[in-house]
């Protein structure tokens, strides 16, 4: 594989992406002293290959949803660039944004809230067609809706078209949400915790469906989750985020079977397993405390206050960049060899 091939192989590149929020300060506070800045996403670099499922993993507050929204262009980044399919989409507007949204779609976390409760399923699915003026013919739109519902295995589609979202189960709603994104034939889907609010029993089914759709249509997924077990099953590559930065990135199996960064290790240890005899025990975690506030990021390695292996150098020296550990496995721990 030469460099040229590699470049066309990449569908989305995110470079040094930052999102800083400045909360509203009182009049007095805004006069004196430095501004309080919440650094939700603080220098993110990753690229996603065409046809790949890329998992973005992290605790709540790690900035993964913010990243998803920036990729989706729902919020504007403070700095950095997003390149999609060879086009810089960081600050596009109007027609180009509209075109971008035909190619990149999003599945939201809460299937109960992501559909207008006053819309019927037909109207929910019709909305993207109307917005993007795909077809003026109502019957043709109906056919497209049926096709999209078939793709997400809602059978028979006609039965569901007249229903309201509240008449469907969580799993069915997430299928509809997926169908709504597929109807525009996108190239990439941003899936923000699509199964976290769905019953455990239907999760696998939804993920299967999403994977089938991805294979059939050759889609690329940016899969955002806090759930390592689904990430391993579902994704090709994962990136672990901590406080707005990627601390480890690589092929899914590699990262989960051979985690390098202490944070990834802790995350993997924390996954509860229903093992006979241990069902009653709650695992002791290697890391303690809560994720620090993104308004007050610790100096040096931002994980050091919670890291069991932290040394003075971790807080004293500059923040470590991602380092290559081979096999496409990257990490950001300067003491990885010692703690390995």
């Amino acid at each position: 594989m030469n460099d040229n091939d590699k470049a066309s192989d990449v569908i989305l590149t995110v470079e040094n992406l930052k999102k800083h929020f400045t909360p509203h300060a009182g009049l007095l506070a805004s006069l004196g002293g430095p501004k309080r800045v919440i650094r939700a996403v603080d220098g993110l670099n990753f690229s996603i290959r065409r046809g790949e499922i890329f998992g973005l993993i992290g605790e709540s507050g790690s900035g993964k949803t913010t990243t998803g929204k920036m990729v989706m262009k729902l919020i504007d980044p403070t700095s950095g660039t997003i390149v999609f399919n060879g086009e810089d989409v960081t600050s596009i507007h109007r027609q180009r944004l509209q075109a971008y949204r035909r190619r990149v779609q999003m599945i939201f976390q809460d299937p109960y809230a992501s559909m207008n409760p006053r819309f019927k399923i037909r109207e929910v699915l019709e909305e993207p067609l109307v917005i993007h003026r795909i077809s003026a013919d109502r019957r043709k739109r109906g056919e497209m809706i049926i096709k999209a519902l078939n793709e997400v295995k809602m059978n028979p589609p006609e039965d569901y078209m007249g229903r309201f979202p509240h008449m469907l189960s969580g799993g069915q709603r997430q299928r509809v949400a997926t169908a709504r994104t597929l109807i525009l034939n996108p190239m990439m889907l941003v899936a923000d915790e699509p199964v976290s609010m769905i019953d455990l029993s239907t999760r696998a089914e939804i993920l299967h469906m999403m994977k089938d759709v991805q294979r059939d249509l050759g889609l690329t997924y940016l899969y955002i989750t806090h759930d390592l077990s689904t990430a391993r099953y579902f994704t090709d590559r994962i990136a672990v985020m901590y406080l707005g930065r990627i601390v480890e990135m690589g092929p899914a199996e590699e990262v989960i079977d051979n985690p390098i960064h202490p944070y990834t290790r802790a995350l993997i240890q924390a996954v509860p397993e229903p093992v006979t005899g241990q069902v009653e025990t709650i695992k002791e975690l290697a890391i303690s405390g809560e994720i620090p506030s993104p308004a007050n990021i610790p100096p040096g390695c931002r994980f050091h206050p919670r890291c069991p292996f932290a040394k003075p150098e971790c807080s004293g020296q500059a923040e470590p960049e991602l380092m290559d550990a081979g096999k496409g496995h990257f990490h950001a721990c300067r003491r990885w060899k010692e703690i390995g």
Partner: protein
Amino acid sequence: MNLKDLAYWFNDFWTEFRREKSGLIGLAILATAVLVVVFEPLILPFKGAAASWRNINYWEDNSPNAPPVWTNLLPGKDSAVTGTIKPARVSEATIEGGAVATTWEFEYVYQYDLPPLDLIMHLRATGNLTFQMTLQRPDGKSILLSQASEHGLANGTIRMAATAYGRDACFAFLKQYENADRVGILTSSDMKVTDIAFAEAKEGMFDNPVAQKGKYRILVTAIGNAGTDKVESCEIIVAGRVSGLLGTDNLKRDLFSGIVAGLKWALLIGLFVSFVSVIIGVMYGIIAAYFGGMIDKTMMFIYYIVNSIPVLPILIVFSAVFKPSLMTIIWIMIIFSWTGSVMTVRSMALQIKEETYIEAARALGSGHARIIFKHMAPLLIPYSFASMALSVPGFIVFESSLSLLGLGDPTIVTWGAILHDAMLGNAMLNGVWWWIIPPGLLIAIMGMTFAFLGFAMDKILHPKLRTR
């Protein structure tokens, strides 16, 4: 939202609404009011009341300051009621010299204690004619109430009032029965025509007339040339001491007609102003909340300015400078009152804006207009309805206050305008209570109606207010 959903929603709403007693009362009154407006031409006793409210000639046959008819039901003396009599018989007789005498015979059953104020004859005639109006009393005596000749009439109207021409005849009649000493110090200009004409013929009838009850006959005779002269549509109007359902004012106007004619303006002003201003306010609030940032700040700044301008002084100045018309008053009210719902809507819209489905719609590529009109506005419609209903009374009262101050549209009759006239006519001092209480009460009732409706809708559409 298609028709079926709307029907479903309405059904739901109605089931809830039926439980609100005050809401039902409000609805019943509103339905009655709408019916009155629709059937106004049938209900109006004076068909031209709305158009001719300020035309004094239109009302000349009424009695001024007459109390309502139903005051006869109260203990005390009964008064003659205003009304129109149609001829019972018409006869023609040829007299010498080729003249024809047409006689209309009217029957008037008089059973009150106090006589009417006047008897007025109307007819249309062509040619040169002589008219006579004679009253035949139940006791067999008769009085020639009036006599007149008209020349060169071309389908002209003739109006003969007994009080205007009948004094001499009455004085002559009085002389026959009253004692000579009393009559000696009187002249014909002292005569109260109807008092004498409807009193028992005996001594003392001038000072203490006793009603002569019974069937009176009024004969109207028109004498003219056969063939060339024509007379038609003769009728007698009894200008009574009590008149209509709600009496008359000092300019003889029938107040019931005025109030019925004013109802549609009250409804129009209340509903139209509240509808338009609430729609503007709701859209303003949504837009400010949706766009946020500088747009929100600017819009809120404008809102605060408009909200703090006192409307009444502005309207007073405006009305003094320009000729106020209904439409300009309505628009000024809208310009200064759309702010009412802005704050509530803005806070609600700020909440809706954060819903995931709004974000989802944006991710799908929805434009601002689509999000505002398809996703946000429908959620605020129920609130808008309630707030429209609640703001109606304010506007009705507002227009009334303007009219009361004399700043209303002078070409229409509104309840406030009636009150303004009552104030100018010293209705309070003269004890003309029927001029003040009905319009005032109706303004209050109309306000109450919409307040009831609004409260009921508010309760249903904002479940948090429910006390059960």
